[in-house]
């Protein structure tokens, strides 16, 4: 039976070493692909490199805090806010790259057509690829926890900051994953998808680099309203720094969730139209 299976599925079945029904359907197929993507990101040597880079960035930031006198005097809540923003930005970058590679990279490596020939609904393919991104984001969250504890446990609102990171960060991170995936499916090239996706990411994440003064102008306020990154950062600011209850941040969450749904719709549309050849 294995010899007749499309390559990706049979490879997954062999690698997972467990019984995967053939032909895989719906959720089973999605889980199969998610487990393959996740294992490639976490167990593969090249895949582990991104985890190391994430650690190094977080370590550099943490060391900067203890080595710089001015930064070392920052309030704990401010430090937690900065680190939460950094982790969300890194997560969005990670899922964008993984998303762009999910379809565009398969095409570049010549493995997209065998994947499309697998008896899998396109929705299962999409869910599986997004599942892989969720595994990667979860790993990044786990890596970030000790850093957040190290810089923020002597102050207040650390738990609220972690809750914000999970509840508010996940929609925005997955949104960029969906965007990367959709662009990869649209252009059938990881490089093109990544170029466009990075431009969008930099534009969206610009509030993380702008001071509060610039964001108080009319354009800044308008951008804050529609930009999911701004909405999330404002919500994290309100919860972690101003000690407002996390449950009051429904509007920013709704903005981020709406953007996630939009990106998901776009990804589903482009993946469902995949033929394996440039359109």
């Amino acid at each position, binding site marked *: 039976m294995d010899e007749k299976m499309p390559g990706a599925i049979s490879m997954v079945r062999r690698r997972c070493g467990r019984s995967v029904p053939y032909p895989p359907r719906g959720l089973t197929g999605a889980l199969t692909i998610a487990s393959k993507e996740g294992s490639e990101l976490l*167990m*593969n*040597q090249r895949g*582990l*490199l991104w*985890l*190391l880079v994430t*650690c*190094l960035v*977080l*370590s550099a930031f*943490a*060391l900067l*805090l*203890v080595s710089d006198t001015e*930064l*070392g*005097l*920052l*309030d*704990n*809540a*401010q*430090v937690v806010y900065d680190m939460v923003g950094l982790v969300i930005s890194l997560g969005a970058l990670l899922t964008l790259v993984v998303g762009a590679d999910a379809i565009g990279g398969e095409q570049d490596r010549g493995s997209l057509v065998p994947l499309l020939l697998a008896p899998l609904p396109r929705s299962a393919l999409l869910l599986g690829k997004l599942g892989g991104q969720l595994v990667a984001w979860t790993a990044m969250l786990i*890596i970030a926890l*000790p*850093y957040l*504890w*190290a*810089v923020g*446990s*002597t*102050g*207040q609102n650390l738990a609220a900051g972690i809750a914000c990171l999970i509840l508010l960060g996940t929609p925005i991170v997955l949104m960029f994953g969906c965007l990367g995936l959709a662009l990869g499916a649209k252009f059938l090239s990881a490089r093109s998808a990544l170029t466009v996706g990075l431009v969008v990411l930099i534009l969206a994440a610009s509030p993380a680099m702008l001071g*509060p003064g610039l964001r108080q102008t009319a354009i800044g306020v308008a951008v804050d309203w529609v930009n999911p990154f701004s909405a999330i950062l404002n919500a994290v600011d*309100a919860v972690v*720094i*101003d*000690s*407002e209850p996390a449950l009051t941040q429904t509007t920013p969450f709704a903005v981020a969730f709406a953007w996630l749904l939009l990106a998901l719709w776009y990804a589903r549309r482009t993946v469902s139209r995949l033929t394996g050849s440039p359109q």
Partner: protein
Amino acid sequence: MSVVSIAAAFLLAAGLSGGSASAAAAEPLKIELIPSPSNPSAPRIGDALMFRSVIRNDGQKAISGVIAWVSLLEVDPGKEHPVDLEDWSAQKAVVLAQIASGQTAETKWHLRLIQSGKYWISVVAASTADAVDRISGPVASPSVAFTVASKPVVETGRVLPIASGVPLAIGALLLWRGARGRRRRPTPKDAGG
């Protein structure tokens, strides 16, 4: 003390309404600012302070639309300037619908200490109602002075083990996976059998 700080001190001590004796006599609003007894005696960065303001209407008529807000002034020599309350407090102002003649309105103000230094805090109130058009400007409470001591909040003893340990652990895992992968990879000799 510089000229700016002396001027600021004068304004705050006298209250913004204290420009002239006649104007002061006409002010129906009086404000008192009382620090909470639970405030730390030697506050440091990260501590929280609480103040209670009591706004009293000594006039003959009710005053409506009273807006009260916190004014924080840094008075360290060479750094005299009003402080942007961003990050210090989520509670920037309150609007009191009406204060009847002879009545008082109490408000609690919470402040989180973000930066070290010497500060003066006061509460300022103004009314937008027509009934108090004769008030020439906002009314301020006498200021309360406090000093915030610095505190290095990020502890080196916690950060260093994490910042060096986690990358080392991931790096070791990477090397182990690489060594394992090299051992498993068949050599041309193996392939030739």
